[in-house]
């Protein structure tokens, strides 16, 4: 009992070798190591031709007449053979379905890619070409199973050729391992890599320089960032209103809230009506500081008169149309009274939000300055590089000429005809020009190096 399953599979394996159908009997041929890996990539097909070999009972039943039919003694073997068939057919079915999904997904990916290629700008024509090349490679690579199938098919085809002796067979078996290499899909990773690197290595075009210049210009203008909008209605009015409410509540906790509110809104609307413009921060503060008294006053005066006759002139100024005027006067008055110091107004004017805005502006302008310097540096480098590229292009033209001259020279030597003086002179001049250009290039690149170095030093 022990090892019986093993033995049978090994036997079958030998059978397979004899028949040279290694690809077709994975269901039996899956013992260990190399055999099993080979079986894993194959499409299990039990060929009808090999019925006698793999399915002897099944085969013999096929040859029986209807009277002979199937006997009880056939059942055990027949069951196993049918199960082998079932397993192989199900495995084949699943492999094929996998294969179909692979193909479909490869198609989908290709569709997606072609769409994205369309979306690319005209500047990237070169990349696009590369990508379309890539596309073919990758669609190939994305469907590894066909390769597997090819492998199996071809190896099966090779092995099924009539082989006279076992030694010959072994040789073919050995060579099989080499075969798949030829059939492997091309490795497209280098292509992908170069395509991705390509944009970084291409020549700098005049468009690129133009783009950089535009960027520098657009970033240099910082005036837009420095604008601080005036206080909006929300902050100037609503906050003042809220402040008033709070102060009032704190001062007169027992008061009826409804009345309270109406008083305050009355007050604010009055100020609004009178000033028709927003009171300055100093005024607002002062008003809120004096509010308790004011409200009290307002309450007592049935005619809603805001100020008593005995009030100091500063309070009377609350009715002055120009609130900025009031603000200034207030400031002056406060300084005179010794409540405010002369240099504090600036601080007073800076509220929280303004401070935050200024802080952000500072950060922003620092960042912007940095960007501009970087852009300028990039532009300079690009300009130098484009100069170098121009020289390089010239050099390559001259290179070609030199090569041509060399070819002519070789040809002449082969024919044993000496070159004409003119030609020789031309060749020499070409060489000299090339040397000059190379020197020029050297100077240029060393010059740019020093530029970079000096920049690094300053940074």
């Amino acid at each position: 009992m022990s090892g019986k399953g093993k033995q049978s599979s090994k036997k079958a394996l030998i059978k397979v070798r004899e028949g040279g159908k290694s690809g077709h009997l994975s269901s039996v041929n899956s013992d260990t190591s190399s055999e099993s890996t080979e079986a894993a990539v194959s499409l299990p097909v039990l060929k009808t031709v090999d019925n006698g070999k793999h399915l002897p009972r099944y085969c013999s039943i096929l040859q029986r007449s209807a009277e002979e039919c199937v006997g009880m003694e056939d059942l055990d073997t027949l069951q196993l053979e049918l199960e082998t068939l079932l397993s192989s057919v199900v495995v084949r079915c699943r492999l094929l379905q996998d294969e179909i999904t692979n193909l479909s997904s490869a198609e989908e990916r290709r569709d997606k890619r072609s769409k994205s290629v369309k979306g690319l700008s005209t500047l990237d024509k070169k990349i696009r070409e590369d990508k379309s090349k890539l596309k073919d490679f990758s669609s190939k690579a994305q469907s590894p199973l066909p390769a597997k199938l090819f492998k199996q098919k071809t190896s099966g085809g090779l092995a099924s050729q009539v082989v006279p002796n076992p030694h010959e067979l072994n040789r073919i078996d050995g060579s099989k391992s080499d075969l798949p290499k030829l059939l492997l899909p091309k490795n497209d990773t280098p292509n992908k890599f170069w395509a991705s690197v390509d944009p970084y290595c291409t020549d700098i075009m005049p468009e690129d320089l133009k783009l950089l210049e535009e960027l520098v210009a657009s970033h240099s203008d910082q005036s837009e960032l420095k604008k601080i909008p005036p206080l909006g209605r929300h902050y100037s009015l609503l906050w003042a209103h809220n402040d008033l409410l709070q102060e009032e509540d704190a001062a007169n906790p027992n008061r009826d809230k409804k009345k309270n509110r109406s008083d305050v809104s009355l007050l604010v609307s009055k100020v609004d009506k009178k000033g028709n413009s927003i009171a300055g921060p100093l005024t607002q503060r002062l008003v809120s500081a004096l509010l308790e008294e004011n409200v009290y006053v307002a309450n007592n005066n049935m005619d809603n008169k805001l100020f008593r006759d005995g009030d100091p002139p500063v309070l009377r100024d609350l009715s002055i149309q120009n609130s900025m005027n009031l603000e200034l006067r207030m400031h002056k008055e406060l300084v005179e009274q010794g409540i405010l110091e002369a240099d504090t107004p600036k601080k007073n004017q800076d509220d929280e939000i303004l401070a935050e805005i200024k802080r952000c502006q500072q950060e922003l302008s620092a960042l912007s300055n940095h960007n501009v310097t970087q852009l300028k540096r990039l532009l300079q480098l690009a300009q130098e590089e484009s100069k170098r590229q121009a020289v390089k292009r010239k050099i390559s033209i001259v290179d070609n000429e030199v090569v041509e001259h060399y070819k002519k020279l070789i040809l002449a030597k082969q024919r044993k005809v000496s070159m004409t003086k003119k030609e020789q002179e031309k060749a020499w001049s070409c060489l000299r020009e090339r040397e000059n250009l190379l020197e020029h290039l050297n100077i240029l690149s060393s010059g740019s190096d020093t530029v970079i170095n000096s920049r690094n030093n300053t940074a």
Partner: protein
Amino acid sequence: MLRSSPSKMPFTADAAAHQIQERLKNIYNLIFEIEEERNRSEHNLNNITKAHDKITPDDKVSPYYQQKLKSLYSAAVSDAQQEEELIRKALAKINEIRAIRNERRIQARNAGNKETIRRGALMKMLLSSAQTLPLYVGKSPGAKPPPLCGAIPAEVTYIAKMGDMVAALVKGSEEEENWILAEVVQFNPTTSKYEVDDIDEEQKDRHVLSKRRVVPLPLMRANPETDAHALFPKGSIVMALYPQTTCFYKAVVNQLPTTATEEYEVLFEDATYADGYSPPLNVAQRYVISIKESKKNKSQS
């Protein structure tokens, strides 16, 4: 499902023979249909081969060929499905025949004419019944294998049927307990106890055991090629029938079967060996089961 169908049939020897004969004829016809289908499949598969050969030289699959391959594959898939269905039918017929014969055997036993088998014949019978246990081949790759297929245990409420093979925990002569191979005689639902026969005729014992001392053996083999997830993983602790005995012992799965006909390779816990384990031994899927050790110990104490 197949096992239950014969119970509705009359079981005179003649009727059984007639039913079996009918099914044998069915199988005969099905085999011809299968062959026909296989020829058809082969035609398509050859086309695929040809297509592959055409593509291989330039090592590039153009969209046109991808489409072509796809349609070829689809055709091959539908062929394969037809073939699969026919083979399943034929196998179902074979199972029916086995079920009918099993019913007959149980009937005969209940009638009192119990055939006595020698030990050698018994071992052979155990082996062949393990080999011909129906093979489960999932219809789709992710299909959940049914209970009692391979390593999948029975549902908690499952009651083994009359004539089913089980592992039964019985007390031996010296208060020792053993998991033996046994056959269900009947289940008493009121006491929730099984009556089982030791498979070894020489013992001639009939045991009455509570449900938790009876573990039904798998009713189907799992196909390693399509449903490997229904097998015990390597290294799992199982109870396995020790070769040439009718007792189950604790063992570690050492190697899984790779084909439907192969067996597990297990290492039995055996104190007589230096490392505590027997050398690798092969045990059929049918005789490898999982037993919850802790529960069993609790029930024992």
